[in-house]
């Protein structure tokens, strides 16, 4: 055979072999996936029964315990259920030695093994694994540390939280966010550690201060209110906005004066969130500030103010007053909100006093003052007029 012929034979042969091998590979992998699916379906049925009944034939399960599909199904199931069912499944995992295996794998030299083990233990959240997990939060792999913390959060080990927060600034943004997620899961016991991490915000903010403030907001514990109110005065706008947003969850009357002050912030994003948070306070003293908010240069402040007013005693009255006032923006915001509520524009005015001020025209000075301050605000950027869409008024306004 000539060299040319040889080349052709090799090319065709290589091509044909590759296609045959790939075809076989696809068939085998497809069959493998289908078999796994069948096994998983069977295991789901069995584990559901185990969770419901509590008693089981140990011999059969011991055989299954070595199957990674069984383990991952059990792991997923435990993470979903609570109470007695969870206790029963944890007992199964302990009896079959699955949890001991995972604790052992947590000491493996291979990162992948340790990550898998930490994921499993985080899902199980077995109190007996607290010691192993507390060691793992010092692991060199971030995925192990985060999963270990998730396990500890599930178990409820607040004293270890402070430990991991001390080094959170050296984590990546992603890992820091996942750590904060676990603190939310831990709830109120995590608050002291978060407050300690934030320190005195007037003196400066740590790297992930915004995330920590968002976390405090998600936990919603009143003990963090003081720090969040301090955050409203921080020089960084992101932090001020996060603080205003975080106070929303508290729904505390004590935060109202601070939030009313935030309604005068020079940055629209802070005022937007403050307007939203005031609505959660259910405090009548916020009505005035929100009525001012209806005349804000930023549309979203007006919108949130109008929404929040509907939640406060006397708020609907303020909306109706705005509807009769001279300010076009306030009228639009009030009209839309009243329409959403189903209150006709001509309905009798709610006469509940709103701190003695019902005349929108008296607010002209305050608005002018706000406009003067808004030299770099969101809505005041050059060439970015904040006017309503031309021709898009609601039919009821025409």
């Amino acid at each position, binding site marked *: 055979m000539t060299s040319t012929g040889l080349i052709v034979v090799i090319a065709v042969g*290589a*091509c044909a072999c590759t296609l045959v091998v790939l*075809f076989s590979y696809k068939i085998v*992998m497809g069959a493998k996936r289908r078999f796994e699916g069948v096994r998983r379906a069977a295991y789901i049925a069995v584990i559901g029964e185990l969770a419901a009944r509590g008693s089981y034939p140990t011999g059969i399960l011991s055989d299954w315990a070595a199957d990674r599909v069984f383990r991952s199904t059990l792991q997923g199931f435990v993470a979903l259920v609570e109470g007695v069912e969870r206790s029963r499944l944890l007992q199964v995992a302990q009896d079959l030695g699955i949890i001991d295996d995972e604790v052992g794998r947590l000491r493996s030299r291979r990162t992948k093994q340790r990550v898998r083990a930490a994921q499993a233990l985080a899902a199980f959240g077995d109190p007996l694994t607290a010691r192993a997990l507390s060691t793992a939060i010092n692991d060199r792999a971030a995925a192990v540390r985060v999963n270990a913390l998730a396990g500890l959060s599930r178990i409820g080990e607040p004293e270890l939280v402070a430990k991991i927060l001390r080094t959170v600034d050296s984590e990546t943004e*992603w890992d820091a966010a996942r750590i904060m*997620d676990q603190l939310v899961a831990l709830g109120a016991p995590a608050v002291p550690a978060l407050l300690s991490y934030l320190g005195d915000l007037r003196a400066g903010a740590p790297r992930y201060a915004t995330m920590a403030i968002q976390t405090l907001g998600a936990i919603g514990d009143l003990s963090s209110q003081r720090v969040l109110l301090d955050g409203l005065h921080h020089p960084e706008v992101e932090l001020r906005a996060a603080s205003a947003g975080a106070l929303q969850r508290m729904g505390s009357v004590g935060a109202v004066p601070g939030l009313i002050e935030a309604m005068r912030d020079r940055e629209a994003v802070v005022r937007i969130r403050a307007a939203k948070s005031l609505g959660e306070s259910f405090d009548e003293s916020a009505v005035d500030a929100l009525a001012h908010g209806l005349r804000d240069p930023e*549309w979203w402040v007006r919108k949130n103010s109008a929404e929040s007013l509907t939640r406060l005693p006397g708020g609907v009255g303020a909306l109706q007053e705005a509807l009769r006032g001279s300010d076009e923006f306030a009228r639009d915001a009030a009209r*839309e909100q009243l329409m959403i509520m189903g209150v006709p524009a001509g309905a009798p005015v709610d006469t509940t006093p709103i701190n003695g001020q019902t005349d929108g025209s008296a607010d002209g000075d305050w608005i002018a003052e706000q406009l003067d301050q808004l030299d770099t605000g969101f809505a005041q950027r050059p060439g970015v007029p904040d006017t*309503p869409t031309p021709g898009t008024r*609601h039919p009821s306004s025409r």
Partner: protein
Amino acid sequence: MSLVTIGGVAILLYLVGLQVVVFGLGVLSWSSLRREQHAAEDVRLFDMVSSVTTPPVSVIVPAYNEERGIADVVRSLAMLRYPLLEIVVVNDGSTDGTLRCLQEAFDLYEVDMPIRPQVPAKPVRATYRTRLPLPILVVDKENGGKGDAINAGINVTRYPYFLATDADIVLDDECLLRMMRPVAEDRKRVIAVGGNVRPLNGSMIRRGKVTKVDLPRTRVEISQILEYLRSFVAARPGWSRMNALVLISGALGLFQKAAVVEVGGFRRGHLGEDMELTMRLHRHGRDRRRDHRIVYAPDAVAWTEVPASTAVLRRQRIRWHRGLMQVTAEYWRMMFRPRYGILGTFAWPVFVLFELLAPVLELIGYLTAPVIVMSGIVDPTRALALVVVALAIGILNTALAVYLDDRFGHYGQARHAARLLWMAVVEHFGIRQRTVWWRVRAMFWRGEARWGDMGRSGVGNLGRRAA
């Protein structure tokens, strides 16, 4: 040595170079996909769903005469697994009942919304919100093309990131979550993320979601599946790893709003507006020595309807190639400039050489090969051997793409594998040459490059629908 021989050798070298680059990218993509898969298994992705730290996203859907499927698409977007998003549908002056469909499906009412003209767009006629508890906003505007419609969407969005998508696309539940992962990992540097777009034809849809993946019946459609696999599975992961992605598909691209606004938004009236924006973002960032990244998320999957008829496919390919020509004309200065990193020194020249010029060189090869053989310059046996080797490498590259795709778990049945691999062979006999011809026409003939009716049946009417 005659001119013909030199030309023949040059084309041979070109073909070898093309296949080597494609193979190299395939290997790099394989490595990237492995790494990505391991990373995805390790991270607690679904914590993002309930996390207060997850950035909110606006989804912009430009729609022009999409009454057949728009309601289903918006419903499917509303079901996306993501903690905080708003869906902005931009009706780009449709002449059919797109707006009416939306009004009926979502109980819309007209509202005043602030429009901040941060990027240029045609005037907005009206904005609508829904009375349903869904975060949907509809913008009705004058017709201005896809880029213009996305710009209009940018001007009304609230959130710092936006996903630009099409009105004929179905996103997997976790698509947005997976696209946002690179952003959440590195908010300062990642300014754009591309997703993995797959052909929807032949698959089963239930309530706006793909429930069963299957292959379509026609060769035209299956050959496009192979093309998508070669591009989205066997090439983009490799380019992304080098931070040299030249294209974020207009069907599925996530952008940092501030970055897009800074460069002036999408180019209006451009045939390749997605590629043009990607290149502009690269150039703008690198000119200012910013350490920006434009990345690809292979596990973020969306499904789109591809042309089922030859006529529609021809129009699409001509438009794509014209778009590529426009972008090349505007950004050719970036070639071989070290300032633009691997993009300027390698990726962009390779793209121009093997995408823009490929059809011309391939056509010259087809035309001159018989002449060279018949004139006795090259021995016919050797010429045949060269053709066989080139074909074999081409088939192997497609096979590599099919292999890489296996990790996504689609097309797992024996008949799928058989049809895909059979098509990997037969597409070299007729289908490939037809595409080459269309692209040559795009370069040398005027007309046929406008947006037209793509003959879509609408997502809700496509594929083998579930009962």
